[in-house]
């Protein structure tokens, strides 16, 4: 984006006229904010200050305005390329284990002992309705009730299954593949859940036997 020279001059003059009480420029404030963030945190347990080093997907989504289309496209392309599909094309695990993971909001905080995915939950109900029997669900993400059923998966041999399963796996692995600034954690990419855990959550969403699809 180009700013006309006359505007820059006018703004600079206005700033000068405002004198000592003038505010720093937006760029200066950005620098000050970054400095403040650096100096305000310290390591605690497994939560180290390197968690503040942003990748593009984080830094470009750190304001009240979305990134440019070009940047968003780059984030999505990189996210898509990062996805590891499951070994042997085995997408589904055990929906009961998936439900337990969906209920579990633990993991990766400074009060947690280990960064091993086995110590982590999926946090799903914090943001999504999933099994209708659970009344304590969040609304930051869409309802996932009847997730598989609504997408035409009545049995696992249905032709709808393969593309939906792949889409869902990618979404769970790295949600930025479909929305650059998605609110959803990148469960596979960031090592929050392992392959088996992802399969279990996949089963909760897609298995026709899962209570989610009744």
């Amino acid at each position, binding site marked *: 984006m180009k700013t006309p020279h006359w505007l820059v001059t006018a703004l600079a003059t206005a700033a000068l006229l405002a004198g000592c009480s003038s505010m720093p420029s937006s760029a200066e404030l950005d620098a000050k904010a970054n400095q403040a963030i650096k100096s305000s945190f310290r390591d605690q347990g497994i939560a180290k200050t390197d968690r503040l080093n942003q990748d593009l997907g984080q830094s470009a989504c750190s304001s009240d305005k979305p990134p440019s289309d070009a940047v968003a496209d780059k984030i999505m392309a990189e996210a898509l390329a990062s996805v590891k599909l499951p070994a042997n094309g085995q997408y589904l695990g055990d929906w009961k284990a998936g439900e337990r993971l969906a*209920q579990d*909001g*633990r993991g990766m*905080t400074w009060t947690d002992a280990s960064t091993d995915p086995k110590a982590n939950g999926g946090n799903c*109900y*914090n943001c999504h309705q999933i099994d209708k029997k659970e*009344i*304590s669900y*969040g609304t930051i993400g869409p309802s996932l009730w009847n997730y598989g059923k609504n997408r035409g998966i009545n049995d696992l041999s249905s032709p709808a299954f393969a593309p939906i399963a792949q889409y869902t796996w990618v979404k769970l692995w790295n949600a930025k593949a479909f929305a650059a600034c998605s609110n959803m954690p990148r469960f596979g990419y960031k090592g929050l859940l392992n392959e088996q855990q992802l399969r279990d959550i996949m089963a909760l969403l897609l298995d026709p036997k899962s209570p989610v699809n009744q």
Partner: protein
Amino acid sequence: MHTRREMLARSAKVAGLLAAAGFLPMSALAAWPQAAFDAKNMADAVKALGGTSAPAESKDVTITGPDIAENGAVVPVGVATTLPGVKRLLLLVEKNPSVLAAVFDVTDSVEANLNTRVKMGQSSNVFAVAMMNDGKVLYASKEIKVTLGGCGG
């Protein structure tokens, strides 16, 4: 000089002896009723508190509490009855490790209407019990759902 703990232990023993001899006065309950708090269900708790008849459900006993508790750590509950001749009111949580939560020995100077807050480990029936002077044991129950909280909860 006796410590309070020794005194309590002693008065418990004395109360036990008195009870065995059939001389249990009201004030003997100054010692904490350990057996009642160890009980695993309502009937046993009532028995441990000297109740002689089986608890019967009654519309004359009221239990108050929310249908849903946002957090099980603090659940407001109340027990009340309009019947005259109440000796003791109890609050119990069916699925807690210690079922009995509170015992209130009421006098004529207070209304048979008490409110407190209990902990609940999970969704459970909560019982309000009125032990009457005539030996009747009446109760009301209510299911209270305990929900899971956000984030790590």
